[in-house]
């Protein structure tokens, strides 16, 4: 079985925020929700050069996701390959998943009033492509890591 992870090479990343927009555009999201974010720590001198630590965050696709059991309609689903996604057909927009998630990852899409979150771009993965954020990262700093599990 496969498991997927997205890894940021922070030495290459230039915090251009491209990935955030690539993700939004691919999911056709309106103003409001972001499914991934780039964060820079305040500048601090390292060897005479003010540096920043850059991190990329998105849904952790937890092994034991708290969001899944919290959903009253079974709209939050964990696939065999570990991807946790929202079945929009079933979602009633109660946002119980958001409250259950330690990082409040699921957000409401104001266009549909339903929960939306990173689904690893599973439609793209299933079509043999890479996630939007990885495919279009300005500097190829984001990589899709595929772990083969027994």
């Amino acid at each position, binding site marked *: 079985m496969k498991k997927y992870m997205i890894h940021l090479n922070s*030495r*290459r990343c*230039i*915090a*251009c*925020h*491209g990935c*955030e*927009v*690539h993700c*939004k*555009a*691919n999911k056709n999201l309106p*103003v409001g929700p972001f499914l991934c974010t780039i964060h820079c720590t305040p*500048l601090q001198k390292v060897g*005479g*050069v*003010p*540096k*920043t630590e850059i991190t990329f965050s998105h849904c952790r696709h937890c092994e034991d996701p708290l969001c899944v059991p919290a959903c009253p309609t079974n709209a939050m689903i964990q696939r065999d390959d570990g991807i946790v996604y929202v079945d929009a057909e079933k979602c009633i927009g109660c946002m119980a998943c958001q409250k259950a998630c330690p990082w409040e990852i699921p957000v409401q899409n104001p266009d549909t009033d339903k929960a939306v979150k990173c689904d690893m771009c599973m439609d793209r993965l299933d079509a043999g492509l890479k996630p939007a954020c990885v*495919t*279009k*990262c*300005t*500097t*190829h700093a984001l990589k899709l890591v595929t772990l083969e599990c027994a």
Partner: protein
Amino acid sequence: MKKSVYSMCGMCTVRCPIRVESEDNQVTWIEGNPHLLAGALCAKGTAGIALLNDSQRPQQPLIRAGARGSGRWREATWDEALDYVADKLKAIKNQYGPESVVLSSRGGPWQGMYKAFIHAFGSPNYTNHDCTCGRNTHHASLSINGVGRKGFAYDIKNAKHLVLFGRDMFSALRIAENNQTLDMLEKGGRLTYVDVRQTMTGAKATRFFQVRPGTDYALALGVIHEVIKREYYDKGFIAQYVTGFEELCDFIEQYTPAWTAKQCGIKEKDLLAFVDEIGEDRPSVIFHPGWNLARYQDSFYASRAMHILNVLMGNIEMKGGLFIPKGASDCGKAGIRSIDCGKPDIRRGDGVGWKYNHFDKGPGLAHLFFENMLKEDPYPIKAWIAMRHDLCSGMPDPQAQKLALDKCDLLVSIDTNYSEFGWYSDVILPESTYLERDTPIVQQKGLKPRLSLRRKAVEPKYDTKANWEIFTELAARLDLEETFPFKSIEELWAWQLEPTGYTIADFEEKGFVELSDKDIFYDRDKLDGKFGTPSGKIEIVSEKLDQAGLVSLKPFEAPPAPEKGMLRLIYGKVAVHTQGHTTNNPMLSELMPTNTAWINTRQAKKLGVETGDLVEISSSDHSYNATVEALVTDHVHPEAVFVYHGFGKEIPRQTRSLHAGVSDQKLMIGKLDDWDQAGGGINLCQVFVHVKKSIRNTKRRVEL
């Protein structure tokens, strides 16, 4: 129906190669061309979809119905609007002569077409935005190398050390170049960054100099001094190709590391350590001569000094250095045809070519028109057509510009967006977005030259037209069909490609046609004739400058410090915006809706300001001011206040960006006339502004 086309991005002027997918005339996916960029695209590139779908752009031609700038518009058909413009142009031509019409553009690979239009009309007055951008660098390169700033390109990937003076490349973003730089760093290469504040580029650097504003030139002089003293230069190259080296040695004597460190506010030992590195890394050290160096009174000389450093390295026409971009003829191939028309033999209205003989006559200098317009000297200017050029948000002091523009009977804006100039104009001719238009084919020079073009991904959403259509239709009304005879883009492409033997079908596979499959380098021992200077050599001392009454090796003069209560205004770029072009973009305005004022911690303390507090920034004469949040940091020089450019716009139909942030251009009162006499660029960083804590920080509550 699903469709995929290769095209060129139009969100900034880098024009990265892209691939666009659409379904039922809706764009569904944009990525960097997989053959060239392996998919990479920046935020702006993806936000092209948002531009396309934005209802806050002009949707049909508009003719002014109220006073200029009042925002009262009448919707018009294309026929009506084009007839209106053509009739006015004809009347102006009859009464004042064709030279009384100016056409300005942003520049770029299609500017030949705009230039051809105005030349065919009979006016020599084509100009572009470069006086606020690369003119100093361009003229610096011309004076030394005899070729313009695009006469060299940089093989960063193979370099060992890249030195950038204020060229914040990881914010300006050229995806291919950025990846080359990151590759170089991954291979252990070094990046030295010089600026008055820290940037993303500086944060990636191996060495960072935070210098006093206006001392880039001093730093470059200090480096030249040490490089010469330690003999870190290529003697063979200098003997073969360079004149004026002796004069340089005499001149540079005085600029010691200790002097330099004092002027720039840096440590002498850091400067010496930097020169040690140059010694190790040469000749593969690239000193980027600057991009937007329309900054200080000596930016032209600073750029010359950076060019001189490259010459000293002897890094020209070699791997890991500078190279001369190659074109079709270097591949033994015939070039494409392009729409063209010779310049009418009339003196330019900006004085370039007769009053100022040391400047490139091509686009002249846009800012030199205004004073002449007011004086009607050498002749009146009665119409200004701006092709995607937003004078009023790109050049200083829009109110001063408007005084001169009021002398015109016709102001036309051809643009995809509303611009500040467009808002003040008489007619807006809406251009289709780059996703909705085909363009003529262009040649892209490089180590491996290519032919490329933009293909429409979808049909126009609104009643807009492509640039070539607009000019062709105007040309038909003005009897200029000889220059613009093409009835369709296919006809134009076929005519362009005819000498080359290629057809448009050859672009299908990858979106471009590669003219060479391997890198082309000239023989480094046979570069004679490649430098277009009077002597054919690289000239450190230029006779041409001499004739213009300018010195080649200018002594450094320290910039003035700000008066009490004032700071020097410094502007810059951010990765998520292309200046004012995108500040109203639905996706990008969400990422960054406004700008802030960066103030040094020490200064902020004096002003009683902390990060997040509102500060008032006012122009020197208090005729413009804006209130924005402060960002307090150690990483901006204490003499400076820094803001990102492109904000503070006042176009009511652009609700997202309306009054958001502060406009640097509007703070630049009287600065239209403050320009570099040697380089031609405007001194955009010689502006002092008042900064104080705003009264709006109150926590008191009076309203219910």
